[in-house]
Structure formats: C-alpha cells, structure tokens
C-alpha cells in the first residue's frame, strides 16, 4: 500500500480508536476539531480555491446550528442525517440568496459584504426571539439515533467523525474534478479562466453554495456537540478564527484545512487559561504565517505545488522583480 493510500486509513483508524484512549473531555475536544475541520474545508473551498475571502462564516455556522436545533426541537422524529442535510441545505439556500447578488462584486467588497452578513445573522437571531429564544440561548435536545437511544459524548463524537470523514472525502474528490480545476483556475486569474471558457460566475456561485452547505452541516454538528446555542457565540471573531485556520493550514488545500482546524482549535483550548493573550497570539500567528509561510503549514512542511513565492524578510531596495502572480496590477 503506497503512502498516499495509507494516510487516510491511518487517520480513520486513529479517529475510531480515539474514544478508547482519550478522556471524556478530549473526546469532546476532538468533536469540536472535527466540526471546525468541516467549516475550514467549506471556507477553503470558497476562499482558498476561488479566492473569495469570507468574514461571515460564523453567520453560516449559526444558521446551520439554529436550523438543526429547531428541527430537533419541533420535529424530534426526523432522523439526524436528514436534520444535518436540512441544516446544510437551508444554509446553502440562504447563502445563495445572499451570495448571488454579491458575487457581482470584486473580492474586497465581497469580504465586507460577508462581514455584514455575519452581523445581520446574529442580529436576526437576537430579534427572532420567539423562535430562537434570543439572547437567553437555545438548549438543543439530546440526540437520539435510531436504535442507539440517547447519544453520549462518544456517540456524538462518532457521528461527527463519520460526517467529517464523508465531507473530507467529498472535498478531496471534488477538487480533483473539472469543478475543482475550474475553482483553481478562477483563483489564479479570473480573466484567464474566463478566456479559457470557464463559466466564472456559475462556478463562483457554486463555490459559495457549497461553502455554505459545508458550514451549515458543521453548524448542525456544532449544535448537537455543544448542546447550547447563543448568538454571541457566533460573533465576527469566530469568523476571523476560521480565516486563521485556513491561512495557518494552507489556502487552497484540503489537508491544509484539516491541519489548520486542528492546530487552531487545540491551541484555542490550550490557551484557555490565557484568555486575554489569546487574540494576541492568534494575531501574531496570522501575521507570521502571511510573512514567512504564505502557503501555510501544508506547503511549508508537507510539500505541494509551489504556488506562492515566499516574501523575503528585510527591506527591499531598488526595482524588484517579484513573481508576476503576486502583483496583479502589473502588465
């Protein structure tokens, strides 16, 4: 078995064995990591692959989480798989309704519109308090799975792990298809992609919907794993954390999303005692990543196509001849 094939098997085995070797808290933490892996892949499909940076993914996560929680409360008979799919589909629908007009915008504007979207979502959750209980927060009912009865931490962990594994597999396969190549072409140059016959608008829309779907499903998982939802958990800082994940892991890389989500989530938990220093450290990591390893952990240590020439440290003198990709304004 080649190393390429061995990796997924090893990871799956480790995932399956985890609840037997780790304590209850670390099982919960692993569930959170897996939820964030799904979000990071969703965000990376949009930001890393088609170069549309979103600062509103906490909003999408909130949509998925509340959708799943409300389905679980008002229709307890619905199987959990359907609930998660509904959460994903609902988020994708809202994402598209919001995203389609915004896709006419250039990159910078889209980022700001998504930031605005995040604010509107939390505001809406606060104001629709008959449905969402507003600022009091919403208690998510215990998850019941067919013949297993109520699921404990381990059960929820396995649900999350299986869902995450499926979504990772789907993403890995997607980026190897025509669609994935179209996404990458759009990232490298929208104009060149258009000129080569890639329907840019359609693929950007698809990336937006797909990203929202991933994040919505992750939101559903989040609701069940955490068990309690309140709008202030989904603030803009969470969106920024998601951006940190994909930047640290590697933009435009599925393994990068996984590594980034794991590193950031574990670090976040690890630094819980230093709550006030946490943003300081995350900010420093973000800047250091952009300056010293623009491809993230994956490109720096694992290898891959050399997409981004590293920025050199130190003052620059005289005319530079930087990599053409990095200076879009140049003829």
């Amino acid at each position, binding site marked *: 078995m080649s190393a390429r094939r061995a990796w997924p098997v090893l990871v799956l085995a480790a995932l399956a064995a985890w609840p037997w070797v780790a304590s209850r808290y670390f099982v919960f933490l692993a569930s959170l990591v897996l939820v964030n892996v799904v979000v990071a892949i969703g965000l990376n499909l949009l930001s890393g692959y088609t170069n549309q940076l979103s600062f509103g993914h906490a909003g999408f996560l909130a949509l998925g989480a509340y959708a799943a929680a409300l389905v679980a409360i008002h229709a307890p008979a619905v199987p959990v798989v359907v609930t998660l799919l509904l959460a994903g589909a609902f988020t994708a629908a809202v994402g598209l309704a919001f995203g389609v007009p915004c896709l006419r915008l*250039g990159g910078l504007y889209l980022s700001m519109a998504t930031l605005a979207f995040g604010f*509107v979502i939390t505001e809406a959750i606060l*104001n629709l308090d008959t449905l969402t209980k507003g600022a009091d927060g919403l208690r998510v009912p215990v998850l019941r799975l067919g013949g297993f009865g109520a699921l404990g931490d381990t059960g929820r962990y396995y649900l999350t792990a299986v869902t995450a594994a499926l979504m990772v597999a789907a993403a890995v396969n997607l980026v190897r298809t025509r669609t994935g190549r179209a996404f990458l072409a759009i990232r490298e140059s929208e104009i060149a992609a258009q000129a080569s016959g890639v329907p840019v608008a359609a693929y950007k829309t698809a990336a937006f919907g797909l990203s929202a779907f991933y994040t919505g499903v992750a939101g559903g998982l989040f609701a069940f794993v955490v068990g309690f939802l309140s709008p202030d958990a989904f603030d803009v800082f969470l969106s920024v954390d998601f951006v940190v994940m994909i*930047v640290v892991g590697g933009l435009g890389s599925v393994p990068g999303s996984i590594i980034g989500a794991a590193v950031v989530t574990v670090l976040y938990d690890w630094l819980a005692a230093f709550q006030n220093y946490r943003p300081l450290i995350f*900010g420093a990591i973000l800047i250091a990543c952009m300056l010293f390893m623009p491809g993230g952990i994956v490109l720096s240590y694992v290898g891959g196509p050399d997409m981004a020439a590293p*920025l050199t440290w130190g003052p620059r003198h005289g005319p530079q001849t930087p990599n053409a990709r990095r200076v*879009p304004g140049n003829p």
Partner: protein
Amino acid sequence: MSAATIVHVVVSGLATGAIYALMALSLVIIYNATRTLNFAQGEMLMMSTFVAWSAQRALGLPLVLTLVVAILAGGALAWLVERAIIRRAIAGTHWDVLIITVGLSLILRAAAGLAWTHDEFPFPSFFPSAPLVVGPARVAPVSLGILGGSLALIRFTRLGRAMRAVAQNQRAARLMGISVERVYSTSWVLAGVVGAVAGVLVAPVVFLSSTMGLIVINGFTAAVIGGFGSMPGAVVGGMFLGVLENLAPLYLPSGIRYSVPFVVLVAVLVVRPAGLVGRVERRKV
C-alpha cells in the same frame, strides 16, 4: 411626527455621519495609495484614543491638547505598523495585506485589553451639554476641512501624484524614481492621523472600549456607499449613512437599527457597486 423632530434627527445624523466620513476617509487614503484595505483601522483608532484618554486623565490636559496627543499617537502607531509589518509584504497581494491587517487588529485589541482592561470608559465630549444642534455645526466643518486638505494633497502635490502612481502600477512607479516605501509610510501615517481625529470624536458617543474599533465597519460602509476610493464619496456616504441610521428607528422596529448599515451596504453593492459618487474601475489585462 413633527417636522422639528425630523430636523433634529437629521442634524444629529449628520453629526454621526461626519465622523463616519472621517473613518471612511482614513480607509480610502490607504486604499488609494496601496490598493489594500486596512482591516485594523478601527483598532488603530481605538489605541490612539486610549492613549489620548490616558494622557488626559494623567495630566489633566484640555481637550484640544488631548486631540493633539491622539493625532500624534495615531500617526506614530501607523508609522510603526507600516515600518515593522506592512513593509515586509510590500510585494504581496491585497489578500496577503488584508489578512495581515486582520491579524494586526486581533493583536491591537488584545493589547488594549491588557493595558486598559476590556471595560467601557466614558470619554469627554468636545461639545458637552450643549444642544445637539451645536455639535454637527462644529463636527461637520472639522470633517470637511480634513477632507478638503486630503483631497488637495492627493490632487495637487507631488506626494499625491506619487501616491496615485503607486496605486496604479507599483513597478512602473518605482521605475519612475518614486519611493514606494515612502508613499506607503506617508499614506499610513496620514490615515492614522485622520483616524485618530475620528476616534476622539466618536469616543464620547460609543464609549471608549477595546471593541470600539468595530465602529469603523460603519466607516467602511460609508466609503462603499459613496464609492470606495472616492474621497468626496466617503463624505457623501458617511453623511447618508449617519442620517439613515438615525432616521431608521423612527420607522422601523428598534431591534433592526444596528442591521441598517449592513442592509444598506449590501443593497448599494448590488444596485450600484461603484457607489453613489464613485466611478467604475476598469483594469487592463
């Protein structure tokens, strides 16, 4: 609703709008010279306001001197940030710099929290206890004066021409003997100064706190409404947003108030992406 109420609301809206316009201006200055968005503008403004507030409390400075301290702090911080961080990424894409400034905003917010705690502090107003009408009558000229100054700087001076050249094509500008580094520094310092003024003006309204920087999102919205990159647009957008934000609660449920800027932002982006005053940007391939 009486006409007097509406006039009052509109006028106080213009006062807020003038502050938004300044924030928009500080974003636009950096954008115009370097084609990047400074996500940390709000946090920079918050830091300079905190420094000014500390100086004012420690030394009992009059408000005018407090403003001077804020301006000095804002300029110094911007210079430091540009020299220490942004310059390292001078050849980076907009995305690289945007993400770097996101990191910077996290760092500055945490640093302010460590230095001054995350509590809210009242900030003395320049226009205490006077009827609201007096406020805008003075805020607006400050805003317009700064706008006129910046506009003249960009349009008529050598420095302004260099800034525009760097924005258009960094490499060509460098070949023409323009120091791209100096243009970066200058535009950052300029934006820091304008932001510092906005910070001192807005602090009495929203309270001084480490999360005060989020108010600059309204400044961004204002800039987009006017047409991002256009300086008159920044002012038109700021005023428009300020008035709208103050009028909305009269007609809409109160919970919606804070969503208004964002709804307007998305609406403007969809209907008229170039903004009210801005021109459509064309890029040669």
